[in-house]
């Protein structure tokens, strides 16, 4: 919690500044959208956190999101199959991707960066080829039942009359449930402990009797499944999918959210709450840039600088903490 104070602070400052500088920022419509998009990024950030914790990386998330977003209407609309078959295709595919990448990384000892970089290209090409680059829509009435997932909470069964429910995006609720599940898994179960341990030192973890191969594959599977879920939600929300670009760079946003949230790319560290804050900060920045009338073209530059400042501050804080600890240590040693 203490570790996340810094990013929480930045989040508040940007929030206040934008609210002060723009009249349309603090409107129910804008805030709803902001929370919804932040939640979507938060979801895929949680997914990638699992592989980052093992000191791995997944660059294929954006392409997998694109592929999933294309496959779903391809199965349900183009091939007139049931929604169930569509979901099976989405999650079956995600599972297969996770298992395959995990096996290549653990059994063949390939580097995660390389494996998932290949995945990034392979899945993107497949997404475009399957539908011949045709724009895929989610307007079909077979999707109506699923659309509730990207609506507001008042549309959920039995929630129509709850006060304030229509200001709460359903994806936010999904994020909360997923976030709590992920945090419990990482911090309160032995498997989470195994992941953290092997992320720090895989060899020592193996020497302690942990089946590191199985745990690493599990991490990639979790990441791909969450990416698949994220892809589905993104697609339902956006409604119209360009196979050649949908999901581009999402993996980098997810990784940035994880890093902002305290994950180290060296593995073994990360807080789910921090990652959610990191995702929120990124979405907030995008929103602020358009609200405050800053040139759109500068959006990536601004985000890049904020992330850079974030990690610099984090590094400085760590150094100060390490120095304090050394002093404390010396005192204890002398007494």
């Amino acid at each position, binding site marked *: 919690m203490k570790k996340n104070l810094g990013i929480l602070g930045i989040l508040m400052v940007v929030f206040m500044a934008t609210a002060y500088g723009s009249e349309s920022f603090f409107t129910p419509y804008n805030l709803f959208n902001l929370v919804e998009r932040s939640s979507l990024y938060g979801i895929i950030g949680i997914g990638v956190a699992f592989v980052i914790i093992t000191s791995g990386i997944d660059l294929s998330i954006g392409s997998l999101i694109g592929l999933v977003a294309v496959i779903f209407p391809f199965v349900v609309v183009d091939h007139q199959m049931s929604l169930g078959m569509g979901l099976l295709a989405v999650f079956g595919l995600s599972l297969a991707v996770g298992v395959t990448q995990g096996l290549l990384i653990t059994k063949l000892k390939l580097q995660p960066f390389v494996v998932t970089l290949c995945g990034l290209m392979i899945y993107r090409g497949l997404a475009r080829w399957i539908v011949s680059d045709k724009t895929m829509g989610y307007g079909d009435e077979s999707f109506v039942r699923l659309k509730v997932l990207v609506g507001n909470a008042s549309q959920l069964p039995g929630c129509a009359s709850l006060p304030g429910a229509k200001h709460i995006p359903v994806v936010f609720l999904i994020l909360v449930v997923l976030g709590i599940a992920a945090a*419990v898994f990482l911090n*309160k*179960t*032995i*498997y989470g*402990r*195994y992941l*953290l*341990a092997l992320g*720090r*030192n895989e*060899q*020592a*973890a*193996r*020497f*302690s*009797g*942990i*089946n590191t191969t199985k745990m690493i594959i599990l991490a990639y599977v979790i990441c791909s499944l969450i990416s698949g879920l994220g892809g589905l939600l993104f697609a339902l929300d956006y409604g119209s999918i360009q196979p050649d670009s949908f999901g581009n760079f999402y993996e980098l946003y997810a990784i940035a959210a994880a890093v902002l949230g305290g994950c180290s790319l060296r593995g*073994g560290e990360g807080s789910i709450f921090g990652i959610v804050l990191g995702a929120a900060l990124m979405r907030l920045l995008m929103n602020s840039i358009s609200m405050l009338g800053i040139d759109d073209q500068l959006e990536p530059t601004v985000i890049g600088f904020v992330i850079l400042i974030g990690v610099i501050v984090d590094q400085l804080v760590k150094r100060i903490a390490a120095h304090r*600890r*050394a*002093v404390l*240590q*010396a*005192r*204890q*040693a*002398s*007494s």
Partner: protein
Amino acid sequence: MSPLLSVESVTKRFPGVTALNQVSLTLAESEVLALIGENGAGKSTLMKILAGVQLPDEGQISVAGVPVQLDSVQTAQRNRIALIHQELNLSGNLTVGANIFLGREPIKRGLIDKRKIREDSGALLGRVGLNLSPDTIVDTLPIGQQQLVEIARALSVDARILIMDEPTSSLSQHETERLLEVVKELRSRGVSVIYISHRLGEVAELADRVAVFRDGANAGELSRDEITHDRMVQLMVGRDISQFYARKPHQPGAVALQVTELETPANLGHRLSFSVRAGEIVGISGLVGAGRTELLHVLFGVDSAVSGHVAVNGQKLRLRSPRDAIQAGIALVPEDRKQQGIILEMAVRTNIGLPGLRKHQKTGGLLNTNQEGSDSAAMIARMRIKTPNERQVVQFLSGGNQQKVVLGKWLSMNPKVLLLDEPTRGIDIGAKQEIYALMEELAEQGVAILFVSSEMEEVLGMSDRTLVMHEGRITGELTRDELTEKAIMQLATGNVGAHP
């Protein structure tokens, strides 16, 4: 005539602790001064001051009678002082020659003059008795030779004061002897050496004088004819230690570990058969590269055997991973503590709890953190691990305490067979003694202990029976009565016929 190096009343304080308190020391020309003392006694601080890494708060250092201010490594080098660090500072991917001249490459027409490097490093390698091409990649050399390359580098800056920090801690007996020869050779050519070591045997052999550090002060010096093992230990701990190895005679029980016709990747073509009984301490001696660590790794399921089998308490095992070995009641304290034994960045309690997490599992894989905490606290108390609390991150503990964490994590699993690989490497004399006492205690409780050690004294002191390995084979087995340093060396060098 003033001494080559003199340290007068040097004091160094760190926040809350006085690392060096009014330390004085001299070093004559062509002298080997051994610096001994427990970890934390101030040896490394003094060494860093002499190497120009840290400045003293008070006191004066003079080289050849001239007061100097050693405010950087470069200044120290200009005063012809060179430090050889315990963890070698070589770039393993570069050649021997490139390492020797790293940062001082001779230049010809704007490019590195490789010919000059080759010629000059060839001569330097000759001085340290290394007969190899300067174009050899450092990584391909055994540690002992890398150490000699490091010395050649120090000579290349024309050092006359060489500070060596535990140079032999990872060398085999054979490599150690070679290194000692090189140091003697340097001394005869006028180089002075400050030799820091925990190994009292080699100190006694090598040193002209011994300075013993205790609690940041020079606790006393011994001249050449006063140097004995007992005197050194006495000065180091400040009290008389009559019995260093807490040995009692053991009454071994039934065979706990049975190894039959085992062929490991390191000893292809040779089959190893031996057994260890419950309550017995068996040592494995031999030179580095004899295949001892590899043998333990096969017994622990890290690497798989080529053929043969392993049984614990009569049960044949299928060892495909450390997990299988742990389930069969085998534990390993590995040689490479920091890479394989512990997770440095994690808390003491997390490390201790790691192999036994399954025991602390509630329904659905949820961790019973209360039990984990109390179990680890109990283990910290039992092992007398010096740590402020069980949440302390392991990397901030001393080497000895880190090793106790490794032992503690396995003891919580109640192993039947305990494998120890160089269990006391790089830890101070106090912690060593505690680990020996613990081995005794465990043997008494019926644990079968198999330990690999390159420290002759340790093998002689601790083992009920000793297996000696040479190039992947077991060349002999010595009982307590047959056990002498000479007998071990004969077998370790493959001189099997010499043993009756």
